[in-house]
């Protein structure tokens, strides 16, 4: 008896569920207007530095697209793209990572015909030029990995095609940061990083693939070795470079190494370190704390990097359209101006220029003395009127790029040697 009863209820419950499913189904089919009123959500994978809340707010206001930031570290961006390609809708990755990302097949080529400003992207990316002059292309220069042979191809194309790997978001030229008040003399070369004068007061960043490039700039400026390609060393070159680092470490040259933005700011602001590899916003941060700090241009040139938007192969339909809309919006000026005002560079310069005050453009991009006080996007004072940007104009800075962040063929070996350097 009890059995029968239980059976009856089970059937009824299942019927109810079926009914509910049917009702929901009808509701979905019958109410497309309701669905389309829902804003499209794009999960934006990238590093926290590039994920400003202002950009998300502006996109929401302009396009109605909701940007959901997934902030992770640079290394985790590639890890996510390779291991969990369905966990994001748009990725903000660095060009040097492409040599790992593209062969995995998880990113697809972006259709240049759907990118409104594709042909106005600065030639830094497309041809490796600034103002008509070739710039350094050692390492993974963006022009080497900018195009794919086909939409789903895993091979880079040396000549322009319709399929773009990443649409540039930000890029910059990195150099050494110094404390002029503690050094008290001009600094003009990468070799100063290992100068015994700064024993116990220098630092290098502990991210193997980037740290080794800075080290290579130093080795070359000390005339210890001339690299064929600093971004793709041979095993012997890796040995030589790490040996120079190990010798310096053993003699007590380094105060500490840093791994993230804030660590570098702390080292510099506290005076523990007076010369170190640094990122541009970190210099700004130190300066905004009232501590003098210069992003020192050096005669050997800069180590450059660039990041851009990539699309996962899993993206389709409405989300894919929204991703293209978002990218087109990103290149259309407002975001570019926003990034330029932080000392980065944007992909399409003329659209950004239209959104900036002439004095802002003159200071940030033309290397002219600031006519008025320069303010950050949030309104805080960055520079007083009269100051000139470290390194000068866009052409002077990007034109002096010597090499680009890279993944080497001997990456495994390099990582092992770097670990030995840390353990030495």
């Amino acid at each position, binding site marked *: 008896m009890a059995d029968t009863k239980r059976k009856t209820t089970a059937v009824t419950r299942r019927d109810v569920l079926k009914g509910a499913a049917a009702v929901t189904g009808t509701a979905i089919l019958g109410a497309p207007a309701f669905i389309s009123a829902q804003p499209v959500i794009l999960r934006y994978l990238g590093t926290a530095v590039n994920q400003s809340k202002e950009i998300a707010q502006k996109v929401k206001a302009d396009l109605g697209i909701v940007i959901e930031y997934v902030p992770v*570290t640079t*290394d*985790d961006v*590639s*890890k996510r793209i*390779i291991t969990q390609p369905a966990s994001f809708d748009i990725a903000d990755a660095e060009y040097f990572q492409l*040599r*790992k*990302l593209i*062969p*995995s097949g998880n990113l697809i080529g972006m259709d240049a015909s759907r990118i409104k400003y594709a042909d106005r992207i600065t030639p830094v990316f497309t041809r490796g030029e600034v103002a008509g002059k070739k710039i350094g292309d050692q390492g993974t220069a963006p022009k080497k990995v900018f195009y794919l042979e086909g939409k789903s191809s895993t091979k880079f194309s040396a000549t322009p095609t319709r399929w773009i790997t990443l649409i540039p978001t930000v890029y910059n030229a990195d150099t050494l940061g110094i404390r002029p008040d503690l050094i008290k003399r001009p600094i003009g070369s990468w070799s100063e990083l290992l100068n015994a004068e700064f024993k*116990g007061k220098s630092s290098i960043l*502990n991210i*193997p*693939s980037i740290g080794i490039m800075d080290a290579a700039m130093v080795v070359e400026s000390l005339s210890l070795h001339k690299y064929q390609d600093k971004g793709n060393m041979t095993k012997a070159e890796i040995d030589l470079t790490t040996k120079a680092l190990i010798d310096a*470490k053993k003699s007590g040259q*380094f*105060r*500490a*190494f*840093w*791994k993230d933005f804030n*660590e570098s700011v*702390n080292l510099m602001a*506290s*005076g*523990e370190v007076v010369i170190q590899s640094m990122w541009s916003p970190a210099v700004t941060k130190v300066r905004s704390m009232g501590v003098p700090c210069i992003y020192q241009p050096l005669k050997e040139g800069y180590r450059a990097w660039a990041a851009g938007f990539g699309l996962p192969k899993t993206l389709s339909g409405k989300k894919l359209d929204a991703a293209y809309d978002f990218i087109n919006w990103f290149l259309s000026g407002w975001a570019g101006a926003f990034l330029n005002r932080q000392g980065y560079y944007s992909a399409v310069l003329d659209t950004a220029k239209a959104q900036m005050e002439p004095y802002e453009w003159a200071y940030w991009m033309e290397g002219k003395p600031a006519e008025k006080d320069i303010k950050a996007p949030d309104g805080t004072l960055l520079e007083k009127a009269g100051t000139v940007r470290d390194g000068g104009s866009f052409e002077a800075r990007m034109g002096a790029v010597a090499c680009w962040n890279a*993944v080497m063929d001997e*990456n*495994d070996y390099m*990582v*092992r040697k*770097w*670990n*030995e350097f*840390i*353990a030495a």
Partner: protein
Amino acid sequence: MERVHRGLSDREAGRTAVLEPASALATARAGVWRRRLTSRAAAPYWQAAPLALVFAFFFVLPLVVMVVVSFWRYNEYSITPALVGDNYVSVFSGCVAELPSLCLTFKTYLSTLKFCVLAWALTLLLGFTVAYFLAFHVRSLTAQMALFLVCTIPFWTSNVIRMISWVPLLGRNGLVNGFLITAGMTREPQTWLLFSDFSVVLAFVHLYTMFMIVPIFNSMSRIDRALLEAARDAGASGWQALWNVVVPLSKPGIVIGSIFVVTMVMGDYVTIGVMGGQQIASIGKVIQVQLSYLQFPLAAANAVVLLAAVLMVIAAMTRLVDVRKEL
């Protein structure tokens, strides 16, 4: 009633066995299983099952996966199933060839071991003293509780913030150096205070003494006070009573605390990284770097070696005291 029923079914099973041996055997086996599963002896197994399953799924399975992956091949963007020892060869590369100078792995383990010994000895000394004070000198339970809470104050902020806070204290222009210079004890700021072995050990002691205090206090609070009186009556001095009565009876707490501290120091890379100014190697850091370069199998092999090393240390410690017996 139940027993009668079961007896019957057994007899039936026996009867069919004569007729159809194969199926009867199966029925009999099923019967035996049913009995085993429902009998009272099985009850503890059922009770332990949920936790066992959770452990199997979240602990044993990942461990097995880690061991399996450590034998796989990898390249920059993918890992492929295989059964190769390359990763282990890579972990120990140069360890024999470069003798007598140490290879990366040996050097790193030696450095980690040094921190283990230092952190262990200091946390034990401090932890034991604090626990002794709390257990034997603080009489009221409320006071004990209050003092315990005081011990947890360092844990009220995040680990990283706690470590970064050392910079203004120990740095070149920090409070300690400021004091030393104004007191005339030194002319140049002392740099060994920060980003050095000293600062790493200091941070470990600061972070992990609590993990010594708690288990040792727990052991001590269960010591029968009459034993101490007996020791005194028998003419033992304070130190003799401490050494011959309190220490042996606190051994389980000491061993548990030691296991905590040693395993945490062995696997740590954040403290060593921040306090050592990223200049000191640790196994955890090596693994983290390999993970960030997507060298999962190599990182797994390193993790397996680390696990083996930690297990050996723990085995040695538990050899000294049978923790299970003492609890």
